């Protein structure tokens, strides 16, 4: 009977606890190792997946490139066509429709009975006109014509630079003005509307 009696229960309990603790630590370590191994495996698997995807994309790219190369002439034609139309568009947009300015100025000169002697048309629509007027009345008509409300969308900054009058000779004058229209397409469009 005495054999079954644990005379050191505290020591046994400590031993048992130690064993449980050791098992727990071992188990935790193995689980941690397994987790790391699983992560590594997953990473290798993912890398394999990426490699196979890259291979597939690579072969699809090569095939697409080949097909594009086969249609190279279409691409060259498109590039040339669009490039030239872009150049044409820039050109048309930046050109000044001087013919319209000329028509308007000559129209005003004709109405006022004046003579054009000299004129310059420069970039940004800067115009300078020099002419001769038989009388101050004619000159007045010219100024009225150039500053008319109807021409307000065509000319602005009408400025008299010089006016000289010598007895028995026509008045000589120089007027600067700015032509407002820009772009050949716009000018033609507005002309067609009118």
């Amino acid at each position: 009977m005495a054999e079954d009696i644990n005379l050191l229960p505290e020591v046994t309990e400590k031993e048992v606890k130690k064993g449980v603790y050791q098992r727990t630590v071992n188990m935790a370590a193995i689980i941690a190792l397994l987790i790391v191994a699983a992560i590594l495996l997953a990473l290798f698997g993912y890398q394999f997946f990426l490699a196979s995807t890259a291979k597939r994309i690579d072969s699809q790219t090569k095939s697409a490139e080949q097909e594009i190369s086969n249609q190279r002439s279409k691409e060259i034609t498109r590039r040339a066509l669009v490039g030239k139309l872009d150049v044409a568009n820039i050109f048309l947009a930046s050109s000044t429709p001087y013919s319209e300015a000329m028509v308007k100025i000559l129209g005003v000169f004709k109405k006022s009975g004046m003579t054009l002697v000299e004129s310059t048309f420069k970039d940004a629509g800067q115009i300078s006109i020099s002419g001769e007027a038989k009388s101050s009345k004619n000159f007045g008509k010219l100024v009225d014509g150039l500053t008319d409300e109807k021409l307000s969308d065509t000319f602005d900054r009408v400025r008299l630079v010089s006016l000289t009058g010598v007895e028995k000779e026509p008045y000589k004058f120089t007027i600067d003005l700015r032509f407002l229209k820009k772009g050949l397409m716009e000018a033609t469009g507005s002309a067609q509307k009118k």
Partner: protein
Amino acid sequence: MKNTNLSPLRLYIVPILVLLSIILLVPLVLMPQIQRIRDKNLELKGSSERLKMLETKLDALEQIDETDESQKLIEVEEAVPSGKDLAPFVVGVRRLAGQAKLTVVEMELKPGKVATQSATVSATKKLKAVAAKEAKEEDKDKINVSLGLKGNLADFEKFLKKIERAKRLLGVYSIEISQQKEDKKFKFDLGISVPLKELSSRGDIVAASLPEYTPFHQKVFDFIGDFINYTNVAVQKVKTGVKDPFK
């Protein structure tokens, strides 16, 4: 001699080995692997984008009617030529002036970087063409022309209207008008700019996106389609580098 007790180490050999393995695995295997995956992912993203672009381009290419676009290109070539062929241009300008009853008294061409001695054109005694040598002032994508005309104002007005609707495109950027004292006729000095667009082949264009032909391009095409071609003349070329090229 000190007696070292190795029993705790023996007891925890498994966790210690596991810990050591993890410590070694993380920097030596795990981290490089993550880095490789990150790089591969980036590479894949780039490749996917390129493939998507190529597929889009392929779709766009398949929708192109090559015959139609080639026809359009031939027409646009008349308005914006690729080369600096000066002879048809000179003949064209003279035709334009002639139709407006104006006389060409002077013409100076600045054909740009590809200008050579043979580019200098002299058509008549009244027509003088000099190729400019100052490369600094020259623009690769255009020819600048100084044109001197003589006639009356009404005819010049007609000329301006014609030049603004001419193929090839001719842009007047300056005009000087002066009345001649002797015959009361007018002298017109014009600065004209002629745009060019050379066909360029820049390396590998497979991956470059296809330029879109927009309704606006069609509008420009239709607009210049109505223009009149004055330069569609075949000028016979002569030998260069010989004493008399007309023999």
